[in-house]
């Protein structure tokens, strides 16, 4: 009978204790894996979902709110800026492209984004490619003749079940201005998958307040200069103005990353404590199991088993528990990360892809097996030192 067989039979002889130990290890490992995968995926989701425009002009207020709302469709829109701001930026010789954006209501939780066809343009500096999966883009209609045409993001079409030609609205007020789906975008892996795009003219006419406003309102203008070295000057000019602010979207995201880093540090400390508790649990489990079977160990020794054989059996048991728990935990961690990413995608514009196989999985697995084996070291030494005569004495 090999060492492995003996260790396996010992573990099988106490199924509840073994299963609980595996579950404890698996839960601890799941937490570590899920946290690591999700935090990395969230960061990468922000990077991937970031806009290609270098500067966002909006109303004075929170830069974070402006970027989260305009780029990631989170939070509420910042106050409006007049259309004249857009016109000035569009006509500025330093500006290569300026795209007006107006954020507003929603249909089944998917935000309306009113903009111009330039939003989907594909200049050479743009990383994100917009492609129509079906239909066409909405018409850039003049303000007095809105077309009420809408282009649906990929997720919107999938989750609302809307098709080309469908007319839709939400709320009594909007019933008089139904939108018609004329296009569906291919997935972009960004918050644009969760948006309903329409022309500014349609949006202004649908809204009672903006209908009467002159100049017409906007939430933001996305700006790309010809020369990036002009960005600081453009940024300053927008910020010294009485009603506007200029924001570098990446600067806001880097501030969010700074906050994330603090959260990650705290989580790291919590996870270290969890790992310690799991380690202690494994140790206690192995210790009590070894203590309970002193008599069996003494019998094995009396039958000729060497001390090192007994040591090896206990260490094998500990490493087997750790290995199974580690493997289950890694699988479970991926499951939790997947659910977390799904939840995040449903509630925000950050598309996180947590299934990145790298060094994390083998390193965590190796560490769990090594640390788990170490946790079994003291019980193994205890088994090694078991006295035959003392433990084979009559029980009564």
């Amino acid at each position: 009978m090999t060492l492995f067989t003996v260790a396996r039979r010992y573990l099988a002889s106490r199924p509840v204790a073994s299963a609980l130990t595996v579950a404890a290890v698996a839960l601890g490992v799941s937490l570590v894996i899920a946290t690591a995968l999700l935090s990395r995926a969230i960061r990468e989701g922000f990077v991937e979902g970031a806009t290609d425009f270098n500067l966002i002009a909006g109303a004075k207020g929170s830069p974070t709110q402006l970027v989260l709302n305009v780029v990631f469709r989170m939070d509420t829109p910042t106050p409006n800026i007049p259309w004249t701001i857009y016109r000035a930026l569009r006509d500025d010789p330093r500006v290569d492209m300026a795209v007006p954006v107006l954020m507003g209501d929603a249909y089944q939780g998917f935000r309306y984004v009113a903009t111009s066809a330039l939003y989907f343009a594909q200049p050479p500096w743009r990383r994100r490619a917009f492609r129509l999966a079906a239909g066409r883009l909405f018409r850039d209609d003049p303000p007095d003749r809105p077309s009420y045409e809408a282009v649906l993001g990929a997720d919107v079409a999938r989750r609302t079940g809307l098709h080309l030609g469908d007319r839709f609205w939400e709320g009594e007020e909007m019933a008089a201005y139904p939108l018609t789906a004329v296009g569906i975008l291919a997935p972009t892996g960004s918050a644009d998958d969760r948006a309903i795009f329409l022309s500014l003219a349609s949006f202004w006419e649908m809204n009672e307040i903006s209908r009467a406003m002159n100049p017409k309102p906007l939430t933001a203008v996305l700006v790309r200069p010809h020369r990036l070295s002009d960005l600081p000057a453009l940024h300053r000019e927008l910020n010294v103005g009485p009603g506007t602010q200029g924001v570098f979207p990446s600067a806001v995201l880097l501030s969010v990353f700074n906050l994330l880093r603090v959260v990650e540090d705290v989580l790291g400390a919590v996870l270290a404590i969890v790992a310690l508790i799991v380690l202690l649990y494994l140790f206690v489990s192995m210790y009590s199991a070894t203590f309970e079977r002193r008599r069996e160990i003494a019998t094995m020794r009396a039958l000729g088993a060497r001390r090192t054989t007994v040591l090896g059996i206990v260490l094998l048991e500990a490493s087997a528990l750790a290995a199974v728990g580690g493997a289950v935990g890694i699988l479970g961690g991926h499951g939790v990360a997947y659910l977390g990413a799904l939840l995040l995608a449903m509630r925000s514009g950050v598309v996180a892809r947590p299934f990145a196989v790298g060094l994390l999985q083998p390193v965590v697995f190796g560490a769990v097996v090594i640390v788990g084996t170490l946790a079994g070291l003291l019980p193994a030494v205890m088994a090694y030192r078991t006295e035959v005569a003392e433990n084979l004495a009559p029980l009564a």
Partner: protein
Amino acid sequence: MPLSHRRGAQGGRDALATAALLVCLLLARWTGAQQVPRLTFAQLADSIRANTALSPSITAYGGTEVEIQGFIIPAGPPDLSFFLLSRVSATGNYCCELPSGQDEVVYVYSARGVSILYDPLRVYRVRGLFEAGRSVDAAHGVSLFRVRNARVEEAPGARIFKVGDPAPPVGR
């Protein structure tokens, strides 16, 4: 002396010599890292001639590793695989100083992105391969000064030199 003792003594001397060599190599590497020439924004601005030509004193640094200190303007993606390094901060100095243009902006590229605690009011030290001269690329447009394969770290207490300041120190 028995042969085995002599061999032991020889082995010990070899080990010592190897260790000394390693220390020397590490010191040389460390000293080399310290001797990267530092360029200032004053030098960059002073080097510009008519029609965006640059002085030979600056173009001579082309293709070599240099260090430049300045404020980060995150004009590219948030992983900072590309950003602008400027003499003027993206927020702080705006109260009293106009932001600089192409003369005092360096385009910084980092292949693997940069992992730093970003602060718009903090001065960063950028080291990498320097390129000088007008260049156009589709993603980032026109630039005069570039640093590629950049490594970035904080430069606490650093001073930013501007045109008219006394000559900057050579190296560090």
